[in-house]
């Protein structure tokens, strides 16, 4: 089965470049603005869009993403609302892959089977669920594979060669390498270390390897893109969004543009990279 993610990476391989992957929280700072932002992202150069499912207790996220989730929940965002938003996005864009990222509890409460049906119907292509390691694959990963959705796993510096095969076993779409041990929005890893890690993962899989956590600037994005199949940027975009809000934390006329401009600059950085040596 070929998903939009597989198709997108095949195209990028032909173009000889890495992917620019964006992350923003669904419903941040409110559902309407959030939809306008994700609609603007492909035009700004995003190759793959990751959308956070807001959760009250994001254990592995730093302050920026935590605050984004809080804003979204306060503005009434729900998992149902998140899927509806993706459905709206799909009306104008049938090619950009959309990956949902978050924690398991809202999905579990929604009901795994119903969630997979509704996510597929809305046009979701892949899932990243931070608190579902391979040890808990029977919960969502296996059912998602059966439903035709990619289940994208995080690999980290603590995932050694002994453990990598278990982590990669049921992974599809791409592998998300978390370049540091730490929360989202923390310091960047140096690109040499990232290059070595990507090489290590590629010895175990033919899947594309994207790298995230700590990438904030076009230069950094280029450095990572040169050494991997994709650079993921989250907290920097969330920070740009947050900086555009008014004193009450509400969207302003500059909010969509603030995120789109940074995305465009980062996309430029990724596109200027020489493709990683295969």
């Amino acid at each position, binding site marked *: 089965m070929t998903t939009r993610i597989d198709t997108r990476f095949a195209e990028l391989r032909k173009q000889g470049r890495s992917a620019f992957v964006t992350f923003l929280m669904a419903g941040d700072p409110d559902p309407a603005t959030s939809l306008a932002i994700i609609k603007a992202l492909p035009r700004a150069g995003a190759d793959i869009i990751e959308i956070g499912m807001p*959760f*009250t*207790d*994001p*254990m*592995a*996220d*730093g*302050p920026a993403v*935590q605050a984004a989730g809080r804003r979204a*929940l306060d503005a009434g965002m*729900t*998992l*149902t609302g998140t899927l509806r938003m993706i459905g709206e996005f799909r009306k104008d864009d049938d090619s950009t892959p959309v990956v949902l990222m978050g*924690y*398991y*509890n*809202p*999905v*579990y*409460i*929604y009901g795994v089977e119903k969630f997979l049906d509704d996510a597929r119907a809305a046009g979701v292509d892949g899932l990243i669920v*931070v*608190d*579902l*390691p391979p*040890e*808990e694959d029977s919960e969502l990963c296996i059912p998602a594979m059966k439903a035709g959705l990619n289940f994208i*796993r*995080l*690999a*980290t*510096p*603590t*995932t*050694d060669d002994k*453990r990598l095969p278990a*982590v990669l076993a049921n992974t599809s779409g791409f592998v998300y390498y*978390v370049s540091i*041990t*730490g*929360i989202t929005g*923390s310091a960047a890893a140096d690109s040499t270390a990232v290059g070595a890690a990507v090489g290590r993962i590629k010895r175990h899989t033919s899947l594309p390897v994207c790298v995230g956590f700590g990438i904030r600037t076009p230069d950094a994005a280029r450095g990572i893109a040169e050494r991997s199949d994709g650079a993921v940027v989250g907290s920097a975009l969330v920070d740009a969004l947050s900086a555009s809000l008014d004193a009450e934390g509400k969207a302003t006329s500059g909010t969509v543009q603030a995120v789109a401009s940074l995305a465009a600059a980062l996309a430029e950085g990724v596109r200027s990279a020489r493709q990683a040596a295969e």
Partner: protein
Amino acid sequence: MSSLPNSFRSGPDERGHFGMFGGRFVAETLMPLILDLERAYADAKSDAAFQRDMARYRKDYIGRPSPLYFAERLTDHLREISAASGGAGGAKIYLKREELNHTGSHKVNNVLGQILVARRMGKKRIIAETGAGQHGVATATLCARFGLDCVVYMGAVDVARQEPNVIRMEMLGAKVVPVQSGTRTLKDAMNEALRDWVTNVHDTFYCIGTVAGPHPYPMMVRDFQSIIGEETRRQMQEAEGRLPDSLIACIGGGSNAMGLFHPFLDESSVEIFGVEAAGHGLDKQHAASLTGGRPGVLHGNRTYLLMNGDGQIEDAHSISAGLDYPGIGPEHSWLHETGRVTYLSATDEEALGAFQLLSRLEGIIPALESAHAIARVIELAPGRTKDHLMVVNLSGRGDKDVPQVGDILKGRKK
């Protein structure tokens, strides 16, 4: 549940499940460490030197065994209540005196075990989360004793209401980090500790304060706390020549309760009660996860949680910082669904009443947490026969609560 197990003491299975509860729902970064810990704990458990160390520190440092005390005046008082309503009941009430442990609560039993495991693993930095501060104080104490760095995460609300314990932790050399995110109570302290752990996983040991979190924590903490029930069994044999008829303990995450209950789970003659915090009332804000929640996944395990229809975690409330948590350990969720343990609740008001009653009648000021269990004893005992032996776990002393309760009572006098 369709079929009952042969033994209630055999859990968890090799994947850390108690029935459908438990498991290992954590970020990939932590998984290798959690698997290391599982191995290190299995290894320690079967090592005679580890057992010898445990026994020695339990006796000479913690001050175990803790007494099993016949609470004569409380017993008499409840017999009078029974008689006044025309009954002839009133159980014989024993207090398991965990408040006499070094650092003032049962928490130290668990911390001792985990710190000895951390030392075997070569860890030099210990982190912990705390609500009432008792787990933080116990952790700071053993870190001081073994020369380990200690960072304790505590919700900013709890920092304010449990100030005596914050001062103690700092005196012991620990760094207390007030957590400003979310509800600024125990669950947010746990989130923040997990964030620290993900960041510093190479040299840091996370000392969890209750029977919750990813496997092997619920099992390991239960094992370390089971000393409470084991001693109770022996002491009751000595005092009365038989098993107790009922056991009762308060539940935050459920570690003091699991410790008392576990050695008795397969004794079908023993009735067992856990008491959750009903806060302002079960129809208002509370912390009674089993009574008012449903199964979900948080903090590394599947268990009963307070949440809304969208799977978002709801704010818990209890007057007692140690019970103010929207979840409960997974083994309790299983014992609840199998029906082996009966879970009740007590409100803030009932706990305050019990706090004052025990202080006046027995000269023992209980922790507000433990007062929740006493509140249900007051209700249950008059309905039992006079030869009924009831053990209540006095999980901690009330020193930490004296300023908070003092302010509340002063406010009422005016």
